[in-house]
Every structure is written in C-alpha cells, then in structure tokens.
C-alpha cells in the first residue's frame, strides 16, 4: 500500500430530508483511503455503509464537507462531470451483479469501454483480458441467465476493472453467494489488490469476507466506532 492518499473525506455531513423530518446519517465524518488499500466497511443495517459507498462513488453528494479524490475535489462536480469521473476512476461491483440481462458476458464487460475512445479491436482485446483475469474466457458468449451466481459476479468484476479504474467499490459482493463461491470471488478481489495494486473499498456484513481486506472499519450510527482504524 502506498502512502499517497487516493480518497479523503473532510467534515462530511449527509442528511436526508423527508417532509419536515431530517435524518442525519453522517455528521462531521473524516476518513482517508490510501492508494493500494483494501478496505472493508462493516456495520449493522442503517449504519450508513451504503450512503458512504454512494458518496465515495460519486452517486450521491454530501450535505456539507468536502470529498477529494487524487487531490481533486469531486463533490462540487455537476451530474455530467461526475458521470465522466466515475467512468474514468471507479469500478462498481454490486451484490446482485447488476449485469444487463440481454447482453452476453463480452458485451456486459465492454460497457465501460464504450465511454472511452478505444477502437473496437482494442475494446475486444481489453474485454478478453478482463475475462481471462477472472477465469471466464470460456463463458464470453454466454448470457447472464446461462451462468451461475459466482460466474455472474466474476463477469461483474471483469466489467468493473476493464477500464482500469483507480478504485473498485464493492457493495456486498458476496452477499448472494454460497461460502465456497464467495471465497473464490474474494480471492479474485484480493489478487486484484495484491498483484495489480487496485484500491478496493468493500461494504460487507460478512466478517469472513472482511478478513480478505487489509483493514476493516466499523460504522455505527454514522461514526467509525474503532477510531484508531479511521484516519
């Protein structure tokens, strides 16, 4: 893990307003993530794990405070700028894979590359490389419905990393899988971190999954409860 900071949250607050009621998920939250880190975020339901993931992924904005990524402030970007930023920097892995059911594995993995200037041949090469990395070359033309949950999640991982993002954000990546398959998926994530230096943030309920991470933060009521783990 490098000493360079990839993500930094400063005094971040997040409130949700419903009618006249205001619910504060975070208030004055601070944290940083270094390049090459593999961070597991755990906590009970309602603790703010997904909200934190949304803020890190630029799909939601803080009510106050600032979020810096690679030295640049991102919470002030417009919707369109955030979409471009996500395309260039973030790979998402979802609990239920979120593959496009009408596209085969190849086409699913290719999706992020459609946002780049790469030509068709180069896209094809990158897709093949990503699928090979997750040991799914033989399923390239299979539709999601023709694959097991573990295989679908591997396609989702290939999709997340095919455009070589700086950060992989994983939302309960093994929540829908049996233990054996979950270990297989977590092994791939660990490999991506240790061998390819990918920074990974993983939200999980599963302590076994968290063991694959380099460090674990516990969230409760919008605060990191093991303060020594929060930067």
């Amino acid at each position, binding site marked *: 893990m490098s000493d360079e900071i990839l993500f930094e949250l400063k005094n971040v607050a997040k409130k949700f307003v419903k009618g006249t009621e205001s619910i504060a998920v975070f208030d004055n939250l601070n944290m940083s993530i270094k390049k090459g880190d593999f961070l597991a975020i755990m906590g009970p*339901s309602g603790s703010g*794990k*997904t909200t934190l*993931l*949304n803020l890190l*992924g630029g*799909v*939601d904005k803080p009510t106050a405070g600032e979020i810096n990524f690679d030295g640049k402030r991102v919470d002030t970007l417009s*919707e*369109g700028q955030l*979409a*471009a930023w*996500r*395309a*260039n920097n973030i790979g*998402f892995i*979802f*609990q*239920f894979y*979120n593959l*496009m*059911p*009408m*596209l085969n594995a190849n086409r699913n993995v290719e*999706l*992020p590359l*459609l*946002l*780049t*200037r790469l030509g068709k041949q180069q896209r094809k090469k990158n897709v093949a490389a990503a699928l090979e990395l997750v040991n799914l070359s033989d399923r390239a033309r299979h539709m999601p419905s023709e694959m097991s949950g573990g295989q679908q999640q591997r396609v989702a991982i290939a*999709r997340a990393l095919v455009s070589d993002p700086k950060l992989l954000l994983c*939302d*309960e990546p093994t*929540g829908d899988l049996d233990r054996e398959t979950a270990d297989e998926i977590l092994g791939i994530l660990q490999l991506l971190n240790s061998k390819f230096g990918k920074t990974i943030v993983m*939200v999980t309920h599963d302590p076994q999954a968290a063991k694959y991470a380099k460090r674990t933060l516990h969230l409760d009521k919008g605060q990191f409860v093991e303060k020594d783990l929060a930067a």
Partner: protein
Amino acid sequence: MGSLLSQIWTVIVMNIRSLPKRLWMSLAAVFAVSVVVAVLLSFLAMANGFEQTLAGTGSEKIGIISRKGSRSELNSTVSRDNINILATAPGIARDADNNPVYSAELYVIVNGIKRTTQTEVNLPLRGISLGGFELRDTVEIVAGRQFEPGRNELIVGQGVLAEFDGFELGREVRFGKTTWKVVGVFSTGGSAFESELWADALTVQTQFQRGTTFQTMRVLLEEPGNIEGIKQLAEDDPRMNLDVETEAAYFAEQGSALRGIVVFGWGLSIVMALGALAGALNTMYTSVASRGTEIATLRAIGFSNMSAFFGTLAESIVLSIIGGIVGALVSYLFLDGVTASTLGASFSQVVFDFQMSPQLFKNGIILALIIGLVGGVFPAWRAARLPVTLAFKNSM
C-alpha cells in the same frame, strides 16, 4: 460526441432487445397505435380514392358548358339554341368532315339497388350524343355493343355492374314508365363515368320529357385547356348565361366534396390517438420501472443521463412505428382497391376504389411517430432523472 452516440446506441439496443420481457404490454401499445393509424388511413384512402376517381374523370381536352352557377350537371340547363351557337365558337376541334366535335348531354337520376346493402340509391343516366364518344377517347365497350340512337338501349359502366344489381348485359330495367335494355358494358379506365348509365341523348330527352333542353354541352378543344374562344363567345352573347370550364377543373371541384371526410378522419384519429398515447405512456413508464436498476447501473458505470433519455424515447418510437406500419399494412391489405360507392355532388352514386398511396402511408407513420414521441418523452425524462443510487437498492 462519438462516445455519447455509442452510449445512446447501446442503451437503445438493450431496450429493444429487452422488449420480449414486456411482451404483452408492448404488444398492447403496438395494437393501440396500429388501430389509430388504420382508422386514419381508411378515411384518407377513401377520400383519396374518391378524389382520384373524379380527378381522373376530367380531361383538359374537353370543355364543359353549363348554366352559370349551377355547380353540378344536375342543376344545369342549356338550350338547343345556345348549343347551336356555341358549336360555332373558335377553339373547338373539328372532325374529318370539318364538323365541330361536341356532345349535348342530359343527366338524369334513376334508381338502382346497391348490391351490398340492397338499398335503393340514385344512379346517373347520361344521355349522350354520338359526338360524346369522339370526345372521350378512353371509352371502350368491353362487353356487348354500343346503343342504337332512337332506341331504349343502355350501356352501363363497369362500376355500375360491380356495385349495383340488375344491370347485367341483356337485362331489361324499368325507369318510371319506360323500359330499357342493357346492350353493352363500357370502361373509361376507372373514372367516375364508370358509375353511369349511358343512352342516346335524344331518346333520354323524349322519354324523360325534357323538351328541347339539355343539361351540359361538352366540346373537344383544339388545344388542351384553352377555353378562351368559347368563353368569350358565351360572355359576349347576352342570350347566354353560361359557365365554361375544362372538364378537369369541373371534376376537381366535385372531388373536393369529400374534403369533410378527411377532416373528420383526422379528427377521429386524433381523439383515438389520445387513447393510444395513454397506452404508450403506460407501457413506457412500466418499461422504465422494470429497467430501473439497469438504467441506474449504467449511470453508475458512467453512462450519461442523455443515453437513458434517448434510449427510452427510442423504445417508445420503435413500438409506435411498428404499430404504424402494422396499421398501414392492415389498411393496405384490407382496403386498398376495395370498391365502394358514395353520394357525389350530383346526388348520385359515384363508384370509386379506396386508394392507399405513399403519401398516405407517410401520414400514418408520422401520426405514429408523434404518438411515440409524446408517449415516450415523459417516461424518458423520468429515466434520465432516476437516482443512480437505485443501482444499490438491493443492498444494505
């Protein structure tokens, strides 16, 4: 820009490919649009066929002279004296014997029975001089023979034979106290004359007690469209109170009688289109709801909200255009060429064919396109505004 287009294209392809997932809802939208388009095209094809029939009836080579302001042959009278004077007008073509080519004609209404409904309708019986055949070079006797002057003999148009009972070759028909025999069937290439019965003008004059008057005079023009010589003569002579126009202009005016049908057709179709629009909106909102996670996932990956907008809009347009094409094809298959008859400007039946045309087809597709656009734009807006956080909705 290229990236935006490829994003939009990808979303469009995904949406279209996922249509089978919403098969019945999509089919309902297609059906609604197809019905609207079919109804519209039915009206337009009817009006088009009627207009084409009448437009094809008139010739620029023929001048028609009728009483001023009569607007239809039925209301017109032209005296024998006037006809004799007008026959000397400049601009009328002459035959091999240097006689002017013209036909003094009568136009009376007789009864017929419409084959499809077995109802009594008005049919035009045209009394025609022999010069009338020289004038109309499209006339062809397709069965039987020509009527003989001075005898109660009829020849009937092909349209009459097809649409009305009792005019088969050899049959005798009774009009009032007189009996006529059908001796021939004629064709004029599909014009409104085929909706008529023809007989000798002087015999009609006698049998229908018209004295010495006729209703119109038709002349063969030396130069197509040039009626100036005849017009001048009619205007200069104080004894005459006549309109002179080309036959083409006369029938074009008559053809506009169904313009109201076109307006009605559009009006009805627009009202029905509102229903189809509701169907399209419902389908597309359902589509957006069922693809919410997919749309949000694409947005999370970095696809722009424009791609979600245009992808949804394209789905709506595709469904509507399919509906439009189906509606147009149904109209074409079931209506194009179907023979019908309706009351013309002379209160007599005009037989015509429903006629589809590329222009009408285009009108139907444009209507479908409008339904697709309006029915898609609001759901597309919703798709574009879906929160990206929806991609994570199944977690946590």
